[in-house]
């Protein structure tokens, strides 16, 4: 065991980790931040996506020790302190972009990653960016719609009202 320290959602946090401790495991079990979900644990599904130094990664396929000293953003840091949802979260609610909600933390973090580099994506660009995020409920239409809406675009003509 050795101590790992990282800045999570703006706060410096430390905990013990083994070499094999995954970032997802460290966030959930050591820091108690269970908003980051583990679906497939094989880097296919994207439920575990978080941002490390501003870039979206699959936290089930990164060692906690690799994030030593890094700035990590998780779903818990997305809403305001008083609980007000951010634009993406609110759009997912408004446009029914989730059903069971299991994939949603990863979807939000991947979508945030896209909108940071491409604030006005086309529908095709949104779908392409979500290739590594699997949802087994929605059929994706309303997720795509929510992300387009959060980017400030008119979504009235997008499929699956």
């Amino acid at each position, binding site marked *: 065991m050795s101590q790992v320290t990282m800045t999570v959602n703006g706060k410096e946090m430390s905990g013990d980790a*083994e*070499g*094999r401790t*995954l970032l997802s495991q460290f966030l959930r079990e050591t820091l108690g931040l269970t908003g980051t979900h583990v679906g497939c*644990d*094989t*880097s*296919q599904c*994207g439920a575990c*996506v978080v941002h490390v130094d501003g*870039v*979206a*990664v*699959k936290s089930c*396929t*990164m*060692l906690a*020790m*690799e994030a*030593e000293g890094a700035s990590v953003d998780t779903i818990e840091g997305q809403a305001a302190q008083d609980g007000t949802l951010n634009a993406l979260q609110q759009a997912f609610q408004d446009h029914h972009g989730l059903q069971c909600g299991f994939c949603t933390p990863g979807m939000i973090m*991947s979508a945030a*990653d*896209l909108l940071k580099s491409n604030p006005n994506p086309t529908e095709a660009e949104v779908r392409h*960016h979500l*290739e*590594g*995020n699997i949802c087994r409920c929605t059929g994706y239409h309303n997720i795509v719609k929510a992300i387009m809406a959060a980017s400030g675009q008119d979504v009235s003509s997008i499929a699956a009202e």
Partner: protein
Amino acid sequence: MYNFDFEKPSTIADAVSALGTEDAQALGGGQTLLPTMKQRLASPSKLVSLKGIAEMQGICTGDDGALCIGGATTHADVAAGAGAYAGLAGLAAGIGDPAVRARGTIGGSLANNDPAACYPAGALASGATIVTNAREIAADDYFQGMFTTALDEGEIITEVRFPVPEASNYQKFEQPASRFALVGVFVAKFADGVRVAVTGASEDGVFRWSEAEAALSGNFSADAIVDMAPGADGMISDLHGTAAYRAHLVGVLTRRAVAAALSLPT
């Protein structure tokens, strides 16, 4: 996953020294190695992360015009920064998904030499030079079959040098679940001839399709290889596709790559 020691050196020399331990293993982005370890198909005693080595990061242009990419450079950085070689940037932009591209590295991909990975096709078709801590290896000598390379134990890919072709393109027929190439073809047209490298198809891993290279070197056009396909002998046959299907795809994708190379910038 079995436990292991973890080290993250900041120089190539320290990494080589750390890899001197028995059963130590270099760790690039871990996008293949960590899933492999979770399945207990690998159980190194120590992982030596190459992510902290600044001299192995980034892209530059060499004196001879070749594109030099640090071994620990991520696919996302190649996709964004290899504009001088658009065919290669396009290959990098299509690997896995955005989160995988943010971690996975070119050195890790080439060292692993997965028979369905994209980079081996790019490196072989380009006639790239694989630079390690110990020597320089020509791509034609480097790839030695599925998951097998010329690398010795503890040898690290520090840089990959790509001669930039006049025209190039990579076409991948994705296995839809894994996003690896069911078949992928990289075509590179140089002043002195055309090189065609195929991944995903052969039981011997990435290979050069010399018949197509000869035809395309005489006439760089999809018409030069109409109805041409390699033989199905030695092609991979599995639940995703038969050997004959893969052989057919090689022909189709090569024609698409040539057509795209002619219509797009290098």
